[in-house]
């Protein structure tokens, strides 16, 4: 089975508060911020590896991003994927979900035959959940989003699709695109041999030229949406620290709570 996993490098959740906004270009300033694989994408990698372990085949990871996204691809290699491809080109910069899914689709076309595309349900930085579905559209594939469990047999895939308070059981022919939730599995830790191999393995890098891309469809130019304004919301002010002797503090606190009719 030929499995492709699309992953994105995102700022480490612990570092999100450090991410500043460039109000001129209306983009996030990511310099000096530690990065991780988008957590849901890690679940997608894990699921791909489990499928390969069960029915054999090959797992290819693709990421579009700046050169430093390589570290995330290396981690995927350390987890055990067979090959990693980075789509990196100045002209890709500023892509919205439409342009990103187009660029990824072009790379997947270049790869040729495949059976399954997996990705996380959404990236934790943009939170749009649109790249997966967009990709399915560009490739004219059936899609199942928010999968919390999947099963593959012969030419079909069956997925439990998470809904608000229940789940749907959906079946689709292959090839198909699936986006997964956190519940689907617990991503494995890289192994020693995996890490060593990942350090030595070559990461394949494809540019716009390699993809024979219509440059009007990628990057800022290929984006259908424009960010008009980005800002950091003001942090809530107020708050009061009551200090002093414990018993006085307690008394004082109760008085205040009563004053504000909280108790």
């Amino acid at each position, binding site marked *: 089975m030929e499995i492709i996993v699309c992953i994105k490098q995102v700022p480490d959740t612990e570092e999100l508060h450090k991410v500043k906004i460039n109000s001129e270009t209306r983009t996030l300033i990511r310099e000096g911020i530690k990065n991780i694989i988008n957590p849901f994408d890690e679940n997608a990698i894990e699921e791909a590896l489990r499928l390969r372990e069960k029915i054999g085949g090959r797992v290819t990871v693709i990421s579009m991003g700046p050169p430093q996204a390589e570290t995330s691809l290396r981690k995927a290699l350390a987890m055990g994927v067979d090959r990693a491809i980075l789509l990196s080109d100045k002209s890709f910069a500023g892509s919205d979900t439409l342009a990103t899914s187009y660029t990824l689709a072009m790379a997947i076309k270049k790869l040729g035959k495949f059976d399954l595309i997996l990705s996380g349900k959404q990236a934790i930085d943009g939170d749009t959940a649109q790249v997966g579905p967009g990709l399915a559209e560009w490739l004219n594939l059936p899609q199942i989003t928010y999968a919390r469990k999947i099963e593959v047999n012969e030419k079909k895939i069956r997925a439990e699709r998470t809904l608000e308070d229940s789940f749907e059981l959906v079946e689709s022919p292959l090839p198909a695109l699936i986006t997964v939730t956190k519940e689907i599995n617990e991503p494995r830790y*890289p192994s020693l041999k995996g890490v060593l191999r990942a*350090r030595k393995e070559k990461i394949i890098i494809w540019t716009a030229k390699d993809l024979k891309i219509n440059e009007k469809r990628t990057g800022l130019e290929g984006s259908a949406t424009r960010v008009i304004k980005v800002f950091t919301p003001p942090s809530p002010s107020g708050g009061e620290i009551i200090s002093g002797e414990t018993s006085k503090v307690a008394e004082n606190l109760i008085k205040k709570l009563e004053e504000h009719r909280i108790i």
Partner: protein
Amino acid sequence: MIIKKNKDEIISYLEDSSNVKGGKAETLYVPENEKEVLEAVKECASKRVPLTISAGGTGTVGGRVPFGGRILSVEGLNKIICVDEKRKRAILQSGVIISDFLKILEPKNLFYPPFPTERTAFIGGNVATNASGEYSFRFGCTRKYIRRIKVILSTGELIEIERGKYFASKDGYLRIAEKKIKIPSYISPPIKNSAGYFSHPEMDLIDLFIGSEGTLGVITEVEVELIPAFSSPFIMIIFLKEEKILNLLGEIKESKKISPLCLEYFDKHSLEFLKEDFPDIPEGAREALYIEEEESEDILEEWVNLMESYPVIDTWISQDRATYERLINFRHKLAENINNYFRKIKLTKVALDIAVPENSFRELFNFYKNIRLNNPRIETVLFGHIGENHLHFNFFPRDEKEREEVIKIYQEAIKKGVKLGGTISAEHGVGKIKHKYLEMMYGKKGVMEMVRVKKEIDPFCIFGLDNIFSKSLLRS
């Protein structure tokens, strides 16, 4: 000076991380400078009132639990006086919280290697117990990094002891202020050790105070040595499907190409305690080794080579902060889960904390294994700092009868450890719970020598009563 007499303001100072019960005290002093410490000490000395020194309360042997008298908390002495980046030294008041200190050092690219695992401990508590943390396998214990201390004695003197200045004379006398004090005749084992006063021919005076568990005076200031920060380490957990750890350990220690920060052992029962938090622990894993080291290709290659001929089922490696934090829990969660289990079955744990010299470790390890073989009914768990030949062997007696059996086994093990040239307490100290075992280690004579030293330095016998030895011995 803040003085508290209100019961509910004192109550949290009556316990630590041990299960020692019965803590009580009438007054709590919270001095904010040395002058106020001196005032409190003088007052207690003049009235002969016991004074227990209290720090972060993370101690595991009841050291700061007062059995009457008053408490002096050093929490107000919390200033980091200076960090000298050039000389790689820092001067701290004794109430500085270790985690705060480490945070200050981070942007300066400096590091304090012997930090204890529980980072809410204070630097003063760290020195008073000679506690040493997870990286002591590579860097050595606390003692090594303490350059100077200031101590207030019950005689009202404030003394400053710099390492390398005051040694015991050839005939075994240390000088403190105007007094000549004969050092104990026993020699502390040259291994990780926190049992009783340190003693060694021509020893440095500072080493007597390090690890003295609050029985000699109040440490008010500490100067420590720092090292350059190193790049963030990775964690690797190696799962073995046969019990081959000792051989693997031997090869790791001999290798010149690697230098782990720590080597931690987990037996099969430890892995069971972790199953809930780490459901992917491979089936059939009999043992695991946890290491931390800086990452490089050569180092990883060497690890692959070392493991070549061992029955390794799986290895887990952290590759970023998120996985590092998940894997560090492998170590932290174990102690927590064990303690929760004890609490649930409502039993206090019986825990061995023996360390022995390198060449005796195999014998101790096999001795532990035999204990298990011969007592298959008794639940046990074996884990810890195997790099330093120091394991925690915990017993879970189910009822009184089993408890009695366990106590017997425990004493046998202590005897064995001592016979092998080891210590009964490698890191947690003696406190209020291991008096009997200290006596097994140094004999009645050794303990009485400690009592003599204490009485000479603290003639009013106010500090840390019942720590290290029973206060009843002070009357003799």
